[in-house]
Structure formats: C-alpha cells, structure tokens
C-alpha cells in the first residue's frame, strides 16, 4: 500500500471506495453509506456487521489511505453503532459514480445544501420559466424582457421576478423610477426572517411595467425596490441577511430554497397570471439551486459557445445526475431542462458545433447518463445480404430518444439588443424585429403559456 504524502478532496472518495471494495467487495460497498462531514472528512457506515478482525483491518487501511480526509473518531461504523441507523436509512443519500463503481453518499454541507434537495415536482399552472446562466452578460434578462413583452402583446399577464440579488437587472430594464415598488426580493428574503409577510407587503413588491401594451400586463418584482435605492448604504447589509435560514413558527428550518419557493408560490397564486418568468442568479450559488431545483419550473440554461460554459454546466449536470437514483427511469424534472445557446451564430452549421459539444457533455455527465449503457457486445446479424427485419422490437427500443436537454435552442447574436433599453427604444419590440432573434425561445414559452392544439398563423 502506498502512503502518498498528500490526499486532496478529489482523491478522498475514490480512495475510500477502492479500499472498501478491496476489503468487502462490490456488495459490501453497495450495502453501506459514506458520510462526508461538513469539513469534507469521510467515514464508511457498513451495511452489515463485520467481524472484529476484518473491521480492524479495514479501519486501519482507511486511516492510512484517507489521511486528513478520514474522520479520526470513527472512520468505520458498524450498523448497530450509535447513529448508524439514521445514516443508513437517510433518504437524502445520493448515488455517486466513482470510476467504475457507485457508492451511496450522505453529504453534510454547511452551505450549498439546497443543491442536495430533491428537485421540486412540476408546479401547478401558471407555467414558470427560470432563466438561468453561469455568467452574466449572456442576454438572460434581455431574453426575459422580450419574452415578457411578447406574451403581454398577445394579451398575456406576466409576472417577472428578479432573483439575481448580486447583479439585479430586471427592475432597471422593465420599470421606471417612478413606478418602482416600495420593496424588492431582497427585502422579502430579509423581512421573512423576522415576521410573516402579509398581503400588503407582497403587493408592495410589485411594479407594473409600461412595456405591456395592447391588453396584456407585466408585473415586475425587482431585486431592489425604491427603499433600497433610497438607502443604498443598507443594500449590502440586507444582502448579508437575505440568505439566512429562517426558523418557521413550528420550529422547522426554511432554507433559502424554501423561502424563495414560498415567495413565488404566494405571488403566483395572487395575481391570476398566465406565466411567471424568473431571472435566476448567475453561477452555481445556493440561490441558483433554489431557482433551478426548487420552483417546479421549466429551466432555460443559457450559455455562450465557450469553454467556461461547458466547464460550469458539466459540474451542474454531473451533480444533477447524482439526484437520479440509479436504475430508475429518467425523472420528470429532467424534462424541464432546456439548454439555450446565447448569442448564437445565424449559420446553422456553426450552431451545430455547440449542439454537438453540449450533447456529448450531457451524455457523459448529465442526468440522462443512466439511460446510456456502454455496449459490451456486438450484434451479429442473421445472415449478411438478406438480414430479416425484426418486427418484435418495441418502439421505445428503436426510436430516437427525445429530451429537451439534448436539443439546445438558440438565441441569435444581435447587436441591436446589445444595450437593450426597451422602455426608451420600443422599435426593437416589434415582432418582426425580435422574432428572428428570439424565435426559438418564444416558441417554447408560447407553447406552454398558450397551449392549444392549433398552430397560429
């Protein structure tokens, strides 16, 4: 056995897995659960009792292999030991692929725990769309504004919510200073720590955008309301408190995900809206988790055709893959993820480069990965020239898989929308102008918001 001087985070789990598998075999590994504590240290909870000698040997080997990443008090825990039952039966346990093996992992995080939550089921109508991205400047807020204006022009009633507290954009895009509401989402997340939000507070979060015309309506919940802009010195102070966990009256804890979900649910049920559009915070922060996983929404994952996009989304998708139990069908929430190539070239062939790269990434790392199993055998045809057709194969084994996660839609590069200021320059909001750039995304949203079995002409 080699005792390398340094063991780092990325090494620790593979080392544990290999060591346990060497001692107990794949079965023993599968029966147990790995606990990773808040600082990252690991312990293995065996699924069945081990005899003293074996237990001693495995514990020694684990300590040697994991070094700083071993939980020194108890690196190996038997099933009847104190607290073991709780871990072994923990429903939040994730399946992780580690090399060729999989292992069950109980991940205890101080921050980022919302990423471990079971993704919310599809929210009841009206349909919700989350505009998410890893970076700013990909045209997320612009797209959202165009979609909102378009839906309103068709007579729709739209609620637009800005969850990007660090880099707010919607308020400035869609509201003028004189119609800015008293409060913003930042206030809602701060105030709810201390008291229940009542209906009058909620209505003070909403400003009507003058972008809506011809019968529709766009209600906007900006990140910062009028009070924030009047007291800019307090904004960072509020920000520091917005993400805090909230203790509910019954004593249970509401994470930021619960709080955001609760806020959106209440706003959604109040207004008689046809669509709810949410601008999520860029990046892989905790608040992004609440928007991506927690709202029961359709999630549009914006990205430019560049290396960072793929690095970031690989991390996100690989994490989401861990939320899919192995051997199970692809869950419904996966169907609600749609990639959007932002600032895409007009040339379809150039766009397909992005699509191909995206598809490879999803196949390798994403939550659909369980649907692909690497082939282990070659099918030898019956005969060579006259191979008969086999009519017995069911359709689902033959026909192409259809996941929106594999089919990026495009928002085209369009300089006219670069410094978008729709309230001042309305000429860009004529349908023939924006349709050519945002057509794919409009079609997707329209399909959900105005579902009818007819094609509009």
């Amino acid at each position, binding site marked *: 056995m080699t005792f390398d001087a340094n063991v780092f985070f990325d090494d620790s789990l593979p080392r544990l897995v290999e060591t346990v598998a060497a001692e107990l075999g794949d079965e023993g590994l599968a029966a147990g659960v790995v606990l990773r504590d808040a600082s990252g240290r690991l312990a293995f909870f065996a699924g069945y009792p081990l005899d003293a000698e074996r237990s001693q040997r495995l514990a020694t080997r684990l300590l040697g292999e994991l070094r700083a990443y071993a939980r020194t008090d108890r690196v190996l825990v038997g099933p009847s030991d104190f607290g073991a039952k709780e871990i072994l039966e923990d429903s939040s346990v994730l399946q992780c692929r580690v090399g060729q093996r999989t292992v069950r992992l109980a991940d205890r995080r101080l921050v980022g725990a919302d990423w471990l939550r079971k993704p919310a089921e599809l929210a009841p109508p009206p349909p919700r769309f989350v505009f998410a991205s890893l970076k700013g400047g990909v045209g997320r807020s612009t797209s959202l504004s165009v979609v909102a204006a378009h839906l309103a022009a068709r007579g729709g009633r739209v609620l637009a919510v800005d969850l990007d507290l660090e880099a707010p954009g919607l308020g400035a895009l869609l509201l003028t200073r004189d119609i800015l509401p008293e409060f913003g989402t930042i206030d809602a997340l701060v105030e709810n720590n201390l008291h229940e939000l009542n209906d009058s507070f909620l209505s003070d979060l909403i400003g009507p955008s003058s972008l809506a015309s011809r019968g529709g309506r766009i209600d906007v919940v900006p990140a910062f309301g009028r009070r924030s802009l009047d007291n800019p010195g307090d904004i960072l102070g509020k920000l520091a408190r917005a993400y805090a966990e909230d203790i509910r009256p019954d004593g249970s804890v509401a994470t930021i995900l619960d709080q955001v979900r609760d806020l959106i649910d209440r706003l959604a049920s109040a207004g008689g809206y046809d669509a709810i559009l949410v601008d999520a915070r860029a990046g892989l922060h905790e608040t992004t988790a609440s928007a991506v996983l927690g709202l029961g929404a359709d999630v549009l994952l914006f990205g430019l055709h560049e290396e960072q996009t793929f690095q970031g989304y690989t991390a996100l998708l690989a994490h989401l893959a861990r939320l899919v139990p192995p051997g199970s069908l692809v869950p419904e929430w996966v169907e609600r993820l749609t990639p959007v190539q932002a600032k895409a070239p007009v040339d379809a062939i150039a766009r397909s480069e992005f699509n191909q790269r995206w598809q490879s990434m999803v196949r390798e790392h994403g939550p659909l990965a369980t649907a692909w199993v690497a082939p282990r*055998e*070659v099918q030898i*045809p019956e005969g060579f020239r006259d*191979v*008969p057709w*086999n009519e017995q194969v069911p359709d689902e084994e033959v026909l192409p898989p*259809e996941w929106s996660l594999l089919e990026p839609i495009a928002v085209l590069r369009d300089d006219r929308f670069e410094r978008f200021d729709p309230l001042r320059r309305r000429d860009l909001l004529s349908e023939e102008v924006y349709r050519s750039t945002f057509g794919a995304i409009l079609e997707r949203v329209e399909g*959900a918001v105005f579902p009818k079995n007819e094609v509009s002409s």
Partner: protein
Amino acid sequence: MTTTNKDFVALRDELASWPAESSSDAHGVQAPAEREVYAPATHSAALDPASTIVQGSRGTGKSFWAGVLGDPSLRAATAKAYPRLGLDQLDVRFGYTGLAGPEGVDKEKLDECVSPRAAIDEARVFWWATILRAIDSSVGRTARRPKEFLDVAANIEQREAMITAHARRLQAHGSTLLIVYDALDTLASSWKRRRMLTLALLEVVWAMRAWRAIRPKLFLRPDQLEDESLRFVELPKLRTGAVRLTWSGTDLYALFFARLSTGHAADSFKRLLASLSLPWVPYDQILARQWPLAHDEQSQRRLMAALAGAHMAPGPHGHKKGNTYDWPLKHLGDAFDEVTPRSFLSLSIGAAKYGESPPEDRVITPEGIRHGLRAASKMRVDQLHDEFPWIKGVLAPLAGLLLPCDEKEVFKVWKKAKTVSEAVESAKRHGYLPPFPEQEDADERNLYMALKRIGVMFRRQDERLDMPDLFRVAAKLLKKGGTAPL
C-alpha cells in the same frame, strides 16, 4: 360543411391503403401514371432540356421523371406545370434505361456491344450508337438494337453527318430531341467496368454540346458522378453544371396533400379543407401549383395540425416534443439532410396503420407518426439494398453502438463482426458490387467511406462518426443471429 368522425376515418383508410412500396422505372409496368405526377417548382431546373446531368439519391424521382419525359401524354401534362421549359416542343427517346424490351437499353444489350475486356474506345462507340439509335427512332423507324448502329458510330464522319442532318431537321421544325439515360448504376457488375462505361458516356455527352437541337440528359446517382477515380479533363464542368433533385419540406407536404386531394377520400378531404377555410382545387390546378398548399408553409402547418394535432405529445408540455409538421422532416433526412418522397409517404402510411382504435377527430396520432419512422426506415434501407446489397449486413452490427462515437469504436464493432470479409465474400458469391472499389481497399475505413458516399453515415464537426436517425432505427430493426463480446 363540417368535418365529421367519418371523414377522419375515410382519410385514415385512404392513407393506410396507399401502397407501402413502390418505385418507378422509366418505362414498363412501373412507369409513372397520370395523377401520380406532382411537380415541385424546384424541379424545374432538373427537367429543363438544357440541364444535361441530373443527380439524385435513390428515391428522389430520377426514374420517375425519366418516365414522365419519355411518355408524350405525361410530358404534355407536365408542360403545364413548367410552361417555360418548352417540354411540349420535345421529342424524347431513351439512350439507356436498364430495362429490356423494344424501347429499352439494358446491360444485356450493352454487353452485346462492349466486350468484357473492352477499352474505353469501344465503350464510347457504344454510347454514340445509342445516340444514333435515338435519332433513328426519332425519324419514325421502329426501334432497333444499339448493335446495329455500331459501325456508323465507329466512323467519325458518317456519325457526325447523321447527327448533323437530324439536328438541321429538328431546327427547321423548332424542335429538340432529348435522349434520356437512366438507371446508370446497372451498367456493370464490377467497379472497373462501370467506371469505364460511365467515363465514356460522360465524354460522349460532353462532345454532344456541338449540337444544340439534340440534348442528352443523364439521371445519375451522386456517388456515381462524384467517384474520384473518374479522370476526364472536362469532368469538373459537368459536375458543376449538374442539377440536384431534392425535395424541400414544403414540397413533400404539397405532394402528400395532393395525393389526398385526388384519392378516394377526396370528398372528406374537401370538407376538411373547407373547415380550415383552405381552398380545394382540381388536379390541373394542383399540377400548376395554383394552390396555397403547394407553397404556403403556414397553410400546410394548419392542415397538418388538423390531421395529426399540432404537437408530438398531448398535454401542456407536449410542445416540447416538437410539432407534428417538423418531426417527420427532422427524422427522415439522410446524411445529406435530404428527405425522399418515398420515405415521407412511408412514414405517413405507417402512421395511418398504427393503433387499434383510430382517434375520433384525427387522421393520425403522434405515436403513429413516431411508429411510422420504423416503416420509413425499413423502406429506405430496402431501397438502398436493391443497389447496395451489402447494406443490411453492414448496418446491423452498429445497432448497439452509442452514436456518435469515435471512429475506432465503429471500426472495432465491424472487426468483431468480421463485416469486411463478409461483405467481400457475399459480393463475390452473389455477383454484386462490393462496397470497396479496389480489392486492397477492403478495410473498415473504406467501409465507412462507402456509407458516407451514399448518405448513411457522416463525420461530425467534432470528428466523431454519426448516423442519421433514419438509419439508426433500421440498424436496430435488423434481426440479429447472436452477439459477440466486444
């Protein structure tokens, strides 16, 4: 007039009754018939007597158009669709059709003239003979065998005198003789001979540009024209001037609706059109494309939504699975992104046959459309199989692969299945062209190249190999006799 459940049933029955398999010949039993002719605007260039080479993959309508041109009454009907081409001023004769019979010239008649070990001069004489034969029949004599023209064809002076004399006659009448060559993949059963014969024909065709009143027209598969081993200094000009027969999505839907409009359920179709405020027009006007459904995509989409529902799945999230209008077009394309009318119609027929109890207010369902891809996929591979009898044995081992993938993975699968040697042996045993032009080229890489040439596989921009859905489905539908570990 309102559409009733009966109308949907009638349309469904009509669609399901269409023959699932049909391919055309230039003449004979499978020659095109009236009412089958649908004339897309884009095919105008291909039918133009001035376009010498028309290339199209299997199933794009090469033999169909060859047959239409060769039949005076169909030609007259088609002239209405393309009034500027002067099709009614033409006299059309066949130079090669791959079919026996008095009109036809096939491999047998060719072999009679060109000896097994012939050099290219002999082949050229044969092609000149086909031109002289066409002239001979054009002046009203009963068709004779090309063999009888070999002597004149071999003599430059006599040959040119005969051609020039006829060209003058034609010019005096303001008429043009069009000599149509079709089924040129049947020239020979070895690569070497086929190349030699193709090259000789192209040389003769090039020389024919000296006579404006006598125009040869070749319907040729792209892989035969683009064969890199053809060496002829004027070839780039011929290739560049070649017109490609293709079908746009709008053309395919127009063809589909035209068939429904002239079929047995025409009355039901009329009522359906009326309910959508779309006009119904008689066949003549359809042929002349004086119908919004011939070119207006929005009208076509509305009609398709009425036939099949708008989206590929029911419910509020159905739109994410795409719409019923685009889905067939998206999945039926080959590696050149071309959809053939036969594939498109097969899918529709397959959709109409699917499901035990037909829907009350629809002709076909999304599930039916999806299932129809199977029918289209089999049809396409069966068609390719006629020309490339190795196709099924080569496709089948790819069924389990996760495409796209690295070429190494693809080659490994063929190696394990011994596909290359099977292909070589099978071609030898059954006397067909193997996928490899040269014996020493018999390897996995050239097998891929063969599939690439005919639009079955392609290389993506990330260098990995991929296959269109149309053929992936077929690969999975081919029966396996067993498996071998990878």
